[in-house]
Every structure is written in structure tokens, then in C-alpha cells.
């Protein structure tokens, strides 16, 4: 099993006629994902790589039975595109783009919750359940099937880490890029909960950063008696105080959002926490070895 995505998802790409849309049609299909439709309000009736293009999501979903959307639409129209996907009945919507105004992210999150849909993003490479399907543009060769659930705030870092894990024989059930923006469709706490409920996930690997407070939600999970084993990397140990390293986390929790405080909180909760990238795979091995021994 896996979370969010498997080989049953029928995918529609919104904005399929753009550069990223065209790339992803082939890239996802090459990985075995089922892209069944695309949309483009101005190009209805066309085809992209043999996939039909519809004017709107209601038609695309109605004609093809799609239940999953990948949204390649510029930020100014992204909220409307995501709401359209949700209203058309998609249960999973991935918005990889960055540049979404945070007020729109808040509206997106609220709409998804009301409808029971799941939005992943913004500012994420997407979701991949190795060996089953991918929904996004992460480099496929980095992944292999396995039992680690991976959660990442950063795209490139997740490719790098999964590449290392895969080469060390540590496969992944699902890798979800929750995204680098402060307000996320699926946040750390929610991603952890999905993995907790997934029988195919034995342990959780979390890739975090300075800034924001997601890592405290992870610690809160790990501290629960029935939590699955958790390893984590927090990057930004060398970043100077008070500078915006990527997206803003502003003044909130100013003392709590530094590297040392997060590492300490994670360790106190029983998380195997790596302070730098090089330490992560050994930490994960430490996490899963005892289980392998007891199995």
C-alpha cells in the first residue's frame, strides 16, 4: 500500500498544453501513471501525446472518470483551477507551482477541508508512490519501492535524500512533498497521520528546515506511545539569524524556529534527528535495523 496515490488514480492535468503539462504527460506515463485527460479552456478538442484536452474539469472528469488533478496553472489562476478540480470531484489535487499568494493558499485549504479533498502543495514536486505511480516532476530514478514514508518541505532535498535511501536499499512507500510555503494543503501533522494509518509504511523520514513550526507537530506525533519510528533531517544549521532563507516564517516562534531548538525537540520526542544531510542515512538505518532484527 501507500498513501494518497497508487496505480488506481486516474489523472487529469490542468494546463496540459503548457511546457510542464506536455513534459509531465509523458514523464508520468513512462512511470506507469494513468493520465486520462487534460484541460485547457482555449484548446478544448486538441490532444497532447494522445491524451484528450477538455475545456473544463467537469467535462474532463465526466468523460474520463478522472479522480486526481495535477495543476499547471500560473499563480493568478491557480486558486480557481484548484477549486474547479475539487468541485469536479477530484479527491487528490497537486499544485506544484510556487508564487501562490498565501491568502489563496488559505482559501484553497479551507475549500479542500470542506469537500473532503486533499490538496498537496503549493511549491512541491508532488507525490510519488514508488513502483506504482507519480504525480509531479520528481526524477523517477531516485526512488524504489519500500516501507519508508517520506515527508519533505523541500523538492531538491527530497530527490537527494531519496536517491541516497534507495541506494542504501531503503525503499519508500510514498514520498510526499508537502511544500515550502507556510500554508500547505497537507501539512506535516496531516502527512504523518496518513503514514501512521498506512500498513505498508513501517517508519517515517521527515525532511525539515529552520523557520515555521512543522517540526513541532512531528515531535508531537513521535512522542505518542503508538507512533511509528521517525527519523528527521533539519537543514539550516549554519543559516544566520534573522535572514529569510527561502520562504518567510516571519517573527512567529522566533526563538523556537532555529535549528538547535528543533533538533532538541525532535530528539526529546524520540526522533532520530540528523543535523546534516550526511548523517541522515545512518540515522534511518539505526531506525529500521532493530525492526529488521526483530522481524
Amino acid at each position, binding site marked *: 500500500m501507500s498513501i494518497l496515490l497508487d496505480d488506481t488514480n486516474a489523472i487529469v492535468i490542468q494546463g496540459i498544453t503548457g511546457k510542464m503539462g506536455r513534459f509531465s504527460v509523458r514523464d508520468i506515463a513512462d512511470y506507469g501513471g494513468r493520465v486520462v485527460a487534460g484541460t485547457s479552456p482555449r484548446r478544448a478538442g486538441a490532444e497532447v501525446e494522445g491524451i484528450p484536452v477538455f475545456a473544463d474539469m467537469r467535462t474532463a472528469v465526466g468523460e474520463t472518470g478522472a479522480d486526481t488533478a495535477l495543476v499547471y496553472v500560473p499563480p493568478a489562476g491557480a486558486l480557481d483551477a484548484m477549486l474547479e478540480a475539487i468541485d469536479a470531484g477530484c479527491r487528490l489535487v497537486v499544485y506544484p507551482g510556487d508564487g*501562490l499568494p498565501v491568502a489563496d493558499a488559505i482559501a484553497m485549504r479551507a475549500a479542500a477541508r470542506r469537500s473532503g479533498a486533499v490538496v498537496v502543495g503549493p511549491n512541491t514536486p508532488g507525490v510519488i508512490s514508488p513502483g506504482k505511480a507519480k504525480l509531479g516532476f520528481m526524477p523517477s530514478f531516485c526512488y524504489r519501492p519500500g516501507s519508508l514514508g517520506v515527508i519533505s518541505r523541500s523538492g531538491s532535498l527530497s*530527490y537527494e535524500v531519496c536517491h541516497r535511501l534507495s541506494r542504501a536499499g531503503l525503499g519508500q512507500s510514498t514520498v510526499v512533498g508537502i511544500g515550502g510555503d507556510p500554508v500547505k494543503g497537507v501539512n506535516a501533522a496531516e502527512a504523518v497521520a496518513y503514514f501512521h494509518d498506512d500498513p505498508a509504511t513501517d517508519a517515517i523520514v521527515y525532511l525539515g528546515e529552520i523557520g515555521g513550526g512543522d517540526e513541532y507537530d512531528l515531535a508531537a506525533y513521535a512522542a505518542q506511545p503508538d507512533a511509528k519510528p521517525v527519523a528527521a533531517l533539519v537543514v539550516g544549521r549554519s543559516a544566520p539569524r534573522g535572514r529569510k532563507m527561502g520562504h518567510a516564517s516571519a517573527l512567529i516562534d522566533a526563538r523556537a524556529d532555529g535549528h538547535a531548538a528543533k533538533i532538541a525537540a525532535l530528539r526529546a520526542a524520540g526522533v532520530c534527528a540528523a543535523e546534516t544531510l550526511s548523517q541522515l542515512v545512518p540515522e534511518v538505518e539505526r531506525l529500521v535495523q532493530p525492526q529488521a532484527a526483530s522481524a
Partner: protein
Amino acid sequence: MFLREFEAKHLLQSVGVTVPGGTLIRDPAELDECALSYPLAVKAQVAGGGRGKAGGVVRAEDPAAVRSAARRVLSLDFEGERAEAVLLEPWLTAERELYLCVAVDGRAGGYVVLYAPQGGVEVEAGQPPTRYDVGSPNDFRGHELRDVLAAVEPDAALRESVVPLARQLLHLAASRDCVTVEINPLFVVEDGGLVAGDAKIILDEWAAFRSADIAEAIARARRGEPDLVRRCLEAGLMLVPLDGDIGLISGGAGMTMAVMDLIAEAGSRPACFLDCSANPAPQGYGLAFAMLDADPRVRSILVSIFGGATQMERVARVMTRLMAERDSDKPVVFRLNGTNAHQIDDIFAAAGLDNHATIEAAVATAVNVIGGGA
């Protein structure tokens, strides 16, 4: 984008928040025409933080003191920024100084209201502010905030004044794309009224397409940057200048920070955080090299990109071209990986370039080549 205090207070006033009646001057010569009453506060108008500690706020008792204080704060350097204007405000005597803030917060899934009964500089040092997680602006409930306030603020009448003010700040944040609207200190004046002593508003840069205010604040901030930095920003590169000697061209904030940490562990320091994850055109990478080559502090350059949407064979070709055209002999160390990475080795080999297999190896080379390292 940080607004300057006078801009932030103008926004607050536009939604009905009381601010001290201030006078903005850009030149001490304008003081001849101002009718002022004393004592007053002379406040440098800068977009960054730490103004108070840097001497940017001065109390003045008379015209001569105002004049000399205005001259001085206009000459100060605030982490590389000069004040272009000075705000003169009556020096208020407050019964109390509170802290009130509405900000975007990931764990709240939207906005959070923060309150502390002791404002001013105490907030950073003391107990963290009390949180009321709002989420979506429509989910604000005055009675929920009142309950949260009751745990830290015993003055019931004051709570009743703070609740509608918090609603106004939330309204401002949500309607004008602010990610932070902070009043610190928030003065309680004699009649129980609340007056914004200082104001910090951060606008959401991503909303510039629907806000002339934000577009203008971005343009202003860029005008203040050195030429090459401004051109990098305009080319889609996010740049944070640091003070080390390794110029880091990297993709993605998380991966960039991971590499910075490895550089630090190898005993050196990056000269910048230069994120090219927006997948710039070849000229963008060219600008990045031009800037790092021109900076005498930068002694080697590390290019670390693990591309997903970025197709790496294209990046490799851009790099071989840029290396051929470049006339600096600063060492450049590569570690490229990601989508279509299998094509990189052939492209690089034809150009006589090396690509490192791991980021640790690339960092070691970049540090060793300048004789750095532990």
C-alpha cells in the same frame, strides 16, 4: 516585503486603527515649516528590523534636539540600509504597553493572533505571546479570542478593546495580502484607548499581481540593491548575501541550506545563498557567475543542482557554454544531478569539465581548492 513604519501606520489608519499623529520629513530643512509639540520621538524609517538597537529612535525635547537627531538618524547605516525619511511623533505616555500581532502561520493553516500583556522589547525576551489559531479569516471568532486572552490578561475591559482591534488587523491582513501585521508596542492610553506605538507590516510578495502597493514596495526594495544583485533578482534568482568565501549557486531552499551546512561542517562558509530553483534562462546563470566573479570575497564557486522540473542536460550545456565564455580563473566545482542526469557526463567530458558524484565530494573540493577547511 517589509513596509516602513509610516507606510504601515498609514495602512492601519485606513482601517480605523488609532495611530499617533506624526509628521514625515525627508530632509531636516523641512523642519522650519513644521509646527511640532514636545517631547517627541524622532524615528528613522527603514524597512529592516533592529532599528531601536541601532539608534534609530531618539527622544527630542526641543527644535534643536529634533534637528540634530533627524540629521543623525538619516546618516546611520541599518544593516546596509539608509533611512530616506524620518517620522516625528508625539512621545506618548502609556498606562501599559501590549503586544498584538496577526500573522500567517503554517500550523494554524492560515492566520494566528498573537498577544502578550507585556509589549515592547520584552516580547522577544519574555514568555512567548499567547496564540489564537484562526486559520481562514472567516473562522475568526471574537469570543474564542476573548477566552484565549482571559488566560493572560486579567483586565476584562481591555480584553473587550483588544478583540475588535484584532479583528481589524485580521481584516487588514486578509484584504491587503499582509503576512504579518504587528503592533508592538500597543499603547494603552489614559482613556483606555489603544494606540499603535510602532507598526510592522510584511506584505506577501506573491500577491504583487493584484496589489499596486506590493508591486511598488518590491520595486522600491530593488532600487536600493547593488546593480548586479538587482539584476539577479529580476532574473528570478533569490539571493541572500552572506559573509563567507564560497559562492554557492544552488537549486531549492532546502537543498541549498543542506549544502551550506556541509560547507560549514567542512570548515568554510558560503558567500551567499543563491537559489536558482525558479529555473532561470541561461542569462540568469550568466548573471550569477558575473556577480560571483566580480566579488573579491568569493574565492571558489560551487554549483549544486539536483533538478526535477529542471532538465539537467540543458543545465549542463549552459554550464559548458558559460565556462567557455567566462574569463575569470576562480575555481568552479560542479555537482549536478536529477532529471536526465545520465546525459551530463558526456556533455561535461566533451567540454573538459568534471561533475562530482556526491555533494560531500563537491564541497570538499570547493573548500580544499582555496586551502580552507578544518
